[in-house]
């Protein structure tokens, strides 16, 4: 066999390229989007407010339940031809497509599902925001800095280690996503490979087609890519992550 599996992967197998493309789109879009939502809501919730515990729980709950088969089934209904989204659109006079069975849209339903689960990075941001000393905000106010300026000059730099932590964690998690793509596409990664997550592709090759050797080769590639992404994140950290001490 030798390196045949690798040669096949890189030169002959169109599904491999689809899987890489789909996974990269998913990671590159869903990680920054969920991070942005997490930070935004954390900043909004980081103030004294009546009922804060309930709001925090409400924003967090989707991330506790979101990885389950049950929610994936729910998503399949919501974005289906007669699903919730299209029911709402119908009120506005728009006839929507079946989002999950249109190749151009299917991946975005999964990205929305990922972004919906921004609750756990939000909690981490919230814990980080509470660590920032109030004196720094007072000092910024004395110096006449506005809200936007204070956010970019005080909050963001002091939060950068947490931002980095969330980035690495979320990226690794996004690469590992499997259940939603499996359930929403019925295990096929379709339509037209548009939801063929790399993990799903490994599963199909190993346990659908019983090509264990090929699946192992695919798994090695996943490991290399995740390691490369993590290494890249750590490399870039020295330019933008600011440690207080």
């Amino acid at each position, binding site marked *: 066999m030798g390196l045949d599996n690798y040669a096949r992967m890189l030169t002959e197998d169109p599904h491999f390229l689809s899987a890489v493309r789909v996974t990269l789109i998913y990671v590159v879009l869903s990680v920054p989007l969920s991070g942005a939502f997490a930070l935004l809501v954390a900043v909004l919730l980081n103030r004294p407010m009546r009922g804060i515990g309930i709001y925090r729980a409400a924003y967090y*709950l*989707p991330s*506790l339940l979101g990885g389950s*088969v*049950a929610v994936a089934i*729910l998503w399949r209904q919501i974005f289906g031809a007669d699903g919730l989204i299209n029911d709402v659109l119908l009120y506005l006079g728009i006839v929507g497509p079946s989002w999950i069975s249109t190749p151009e849209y299917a991946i975005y339903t999964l990205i929305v599902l990922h972004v919906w689960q921004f609750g756990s990075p939000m909690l981490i941001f919230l814990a980080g925001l509470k660590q920032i000393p109030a004196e720094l905000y007072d000092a910024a106010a004395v110096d006449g800095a506005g809200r936007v300026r204070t956010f970019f000059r005080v909050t963001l730099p002091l939060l950068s280690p947490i931002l980095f932590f969330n980035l690495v964690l979320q990226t690794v998690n996004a690469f590992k996503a499997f259940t939603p793509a*499996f359930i929403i596409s019925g295990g096929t990664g379709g339509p037209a490979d548009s939801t063929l997550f790399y993990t799903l592709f490994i599963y199909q090759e190993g346990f659908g087609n019983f090509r264990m050797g090929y699946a192992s080769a695919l*798994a090695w590639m996943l*490991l290399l890519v995740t390691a490369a992404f993590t290494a890249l994140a750590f490399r870039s950290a020295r330019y933008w992550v600011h440690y207080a001490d």
Partner: protein
Amino acid sequence: MPTSRRWAVHLLVVVGALVMLYPLFWLISSSVKPNDEIFTDPGLVPQTVVTDNYATGWTALGVPFSGFFANSFLIAVAAVAGNVMSCSMAAYAFARLSFRFRRLWFAIMLISIMLPIHVLIVPQYTLFKYLGWVDTFLPLIVPKFLAVDGFFIFLMVQFIRSLPRELDDAARIDGCGPVLVYWRIIVPLSRPALITTAIFTFIWTWDDFFSQLVYLSDVSTYTVPLALRAFLDSSGGSTWGPMLAMAVLSLIPILGFFLIFQRRITEGISTTGLKG
């Protein structure tokens, strides 16, 4: 901040929270709607409340869902027992005992946290198949007793390191060996970390789909997520009501855990970055 602005922020937070929860409310409300209403009414209040969905769903696969729930519970409880026991022992060793290549093993353990299960599954499956364990719960349970969840080991190492060493020394002077120090000092003092480990092991095992999908193919061994998937495949999407009803039931244990341990769960995530 001016009052009007504070109200605006508050309103934004409330509306956002409702949007976030809407799919979940809609799931619950649809589970008591007749099938045709699910597809036409985006609202939350059912025009007619039916409970048939639950009765139909419970037996839809020929075997009642009680068996699937029992399987899921068995696996989750065994995984909790395994993780709490083995991860705390491994963590004790890393935090307190000195042995050869400790730093190296620790580094390997940390790297294993980053390793996706999808990378390991092929060799793991081959091994368990060779042992004749496929289609039993053993591949899902036995590894938990061998401290394979690096995340929890790391969590507990951090916790044990924060305990005063003097207590170990005092126990040692009183004649305790390493095992008794672990049992009498470390375990009782690590209770918060042990409870966090137990909660998250339960939730993750309950929600796990990938490894159950790989190892369990006989209906009698199906867990709740596998049963839901089989339901989806067999109905082809025509019986949404009963399916959504079973989806609701499958989420109840996690919701229950969340209600009881809400503070511990949110603190666990804030301080360690555990993915909920």
